[in-house]
């Protein structure tokens, strides 16, 4: 998957759209522009948006398109240097000490100094994604996923890596990425907290919105190829309409795809009140939302959709169109 020779970077926004499309990622032009800028200006890309709109998928598709290595840091509270950047191989260090002792090699100051140096040699270091990202021969894609889940100290720690492409290890010194192999950084956030301004300032910002009807339909066609055209169109129209309702958590694209696949698995060829009600759990993850939809909204929405579908059909009888 990772080719030894570097691929030429995309030369225009259109290139980016095409490259991502080749990897089954349907990007709108605004997003493609941000990606293109991130590649050209060599700045991290900060993507924010509701869960399930394809933020993580973007980084994966980008890595495939560039045939670059994908390094991923999944954030959670309390994430620290040992899990993200590097860790000393303590077991090996202990062994080293024990061996030095056994060889009676710790007697004088010089041998101690030698031991200390060997304990903190580069080979004793276990590299984690952030450090790996700085030591590759070719630019990898570094995905820092759901940064909002990490706590503030981690934001601060990231600053050095993002701004300078370097990492300081107290015992060893500073590790710097080669200028032509600096990582392509994609940071995602679901916005469960505000990320610090200092960090955002160093990034390109992009808010990923829900896609419009055409784009979502295109995505469903690609990601749920089993769904008949008619079903896919209905599903997308239904979900799009649903997002305009006052829900706790509107369904994302991921949910649309899951739902299409679920309906296909149930051998549904079109939406009906019954199969929609049975599968609402795939689409909505909030009890109140499901209760609200089951309380009559499903039938209403379906009727509404059918009415518009008939209204748009060229041969629709005037009596049918409400």
């Amino acid at each position, binding site marked *: 998957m990772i080719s030894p020779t570097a691929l030429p970077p995309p030369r225009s926004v259109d290139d980016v759209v095409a490259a991502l499309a080749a990897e089954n990622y349907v990007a709108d*032009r*605004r997003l493609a522009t*941000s990606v293109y800028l991130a590649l050209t200006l060599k*700045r991290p890309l900060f993507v924010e948006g509701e869960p399930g709109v394809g933020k993580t998928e973007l980084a994966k598709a980008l890595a495939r398109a560039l045939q670059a290595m994908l390094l991923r840091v999944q954030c959670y509270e309390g994430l620290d240097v040992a899990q993200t950047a590097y860790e000393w191989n*303590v077991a090996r*260090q202990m062994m080293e000490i024990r061996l*030095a002792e056994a060889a009676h090699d*710790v007697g004088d100051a010089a041998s101690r100094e030698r031991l200390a140096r060997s304990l903190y040699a580069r080979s004793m270091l276990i590299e984690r994604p952030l450090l790996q990202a700085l030591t590759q021969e070719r630019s990898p894609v570094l995905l820092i996923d759901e940064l909002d889940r990490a706590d503030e100290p981690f934001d601060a720690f990231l600053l050095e890596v993002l701004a300078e492409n370097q990492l300081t290890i107290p015992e060893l010194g500073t590790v710097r990425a080669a200028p032509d192999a600096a990582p392509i950084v994609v940071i995602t956030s679901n916005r469960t907290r505000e990320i610090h301004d200092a960090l955002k300032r160093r990034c390109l910002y992009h*808010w990923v919105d829900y896609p419009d009807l055409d784009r979502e339909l295109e995505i469903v066609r690609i990601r749920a190829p089993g769904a008949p055209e008619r079903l896919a169109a209905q599903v997308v129209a239904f979900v799009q309409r649903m997002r305009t309702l006052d829900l706790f958590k509107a369904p994302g694209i991921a949910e649309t795809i899951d739902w299409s696949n679920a309906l296909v698995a149930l051998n549904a060829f079109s939406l009906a009140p019954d199969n929609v009600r049975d599968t609402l759990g795939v689409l909505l993850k909030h009890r109140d939302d499901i209760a609200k939809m089951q309380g009559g909204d499903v039938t209403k929405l379906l009727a509404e959709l059918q009415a518009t579908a008939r209204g748009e059909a060229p041969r629709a009888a005037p009596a049918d169109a409400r």
Partner: protein
Amino acid sequence: MLADNVVHFARVLRHAGLAVGPDRVLAALEAIEAVGLARRDDVHAALSAVMIDRHEQQALFDDAFAAFWRDPKLLERMMAELLPKISGRGDRANKPRSHRLANALAPTPVGDAARPARQPDDQIEFETSFAFSDRERLQRADFESMTAAEFELAKKLAEEVPLPFAPVRRRRHEASARGRIDLRATMLAMARQPETLVPRFSRARSELPTIVVLLDVSGSMDRYARLMLHYVHGLTRRYLKVHTLTFGTRLTNITRALRHRDPDLALELASAQVQDWKGGTRIASCLDDFNRHWARRLLGANAALLLVTDGLDRDEHGELTRAAEQLRLFARQIVWLNPLLRFDRFEPRAGGVRALLPHVDRFLPVHNLASLADLGAALRSAPDARR
């Protein structure tokens, strides 16, 4: 010249309250150079990627962009001017337009994340049509400026009085005398003295959670709200992880205003934002609004909620109960400070009080809250155990 225009555009955005520093102007120029000027939507996307950093600013940015780069000839001219050695004056024609925009947007406080960028529009609509609700009486907040003594007291209170919240254990570790063995620190010690083995320990850090203050500013809360704001300002200055929202008939996030060091300036900014001061109360709809739009953003990471309200609202159709139940699921701990109780024997009479009470962890009734000192006494006397 292109640079002139971008600089000018950045100034417009700055007036509109976006934090667009010179670094962003430089980045914007680079970005435009990278995407070229062939397509307007590319230029828009490029500038927006560089110049904004939160979603709320998008609408404002879009408006400003549309207004500023409106003249279709302008782009062509810019393209011509991108070629070196052609110097021309910046486009004068668009200046009045952008100034008007800047003026229209100026009242929005700096970098205001708290409210949707559309807010200035709403505000204008709102003030012209009073038909919104007869229960809602609009009144600008009238925070008298703090006296020096009050300021000192608020500061002392925020510094000395323990908060009525239980600390939460973080997953981040810190060195301590006992706990889990910290291998890395142990190794470092051993490298210095190989013949000894002294284990070093670390344990999970325990600290105060993020605090979200929901402050009722309706008519019945009038006097107490002002006191509370003074206290919360002191708190915000001492302890950064405090978010403050006021509610009466609508929710307003005044966190950024309260971050200003100068209390008078902070309260002035806050009062400019709060529109429903001394109006009616709609606790249920405000809590519901909070649940839908803010809870997930502010109440992550074990946050605690300080609810300051008298609870004087009805619980129509169980709406308040539902909102409170929901809030309970989002917040790790809820402390309710009720300043309106003038009697020692508390009886939850009002429907709102009855609806809220089962869903809070601690209930802090304050008798006769007339000064910050009373508030301090109430917070101090709060029993430590969670209910």
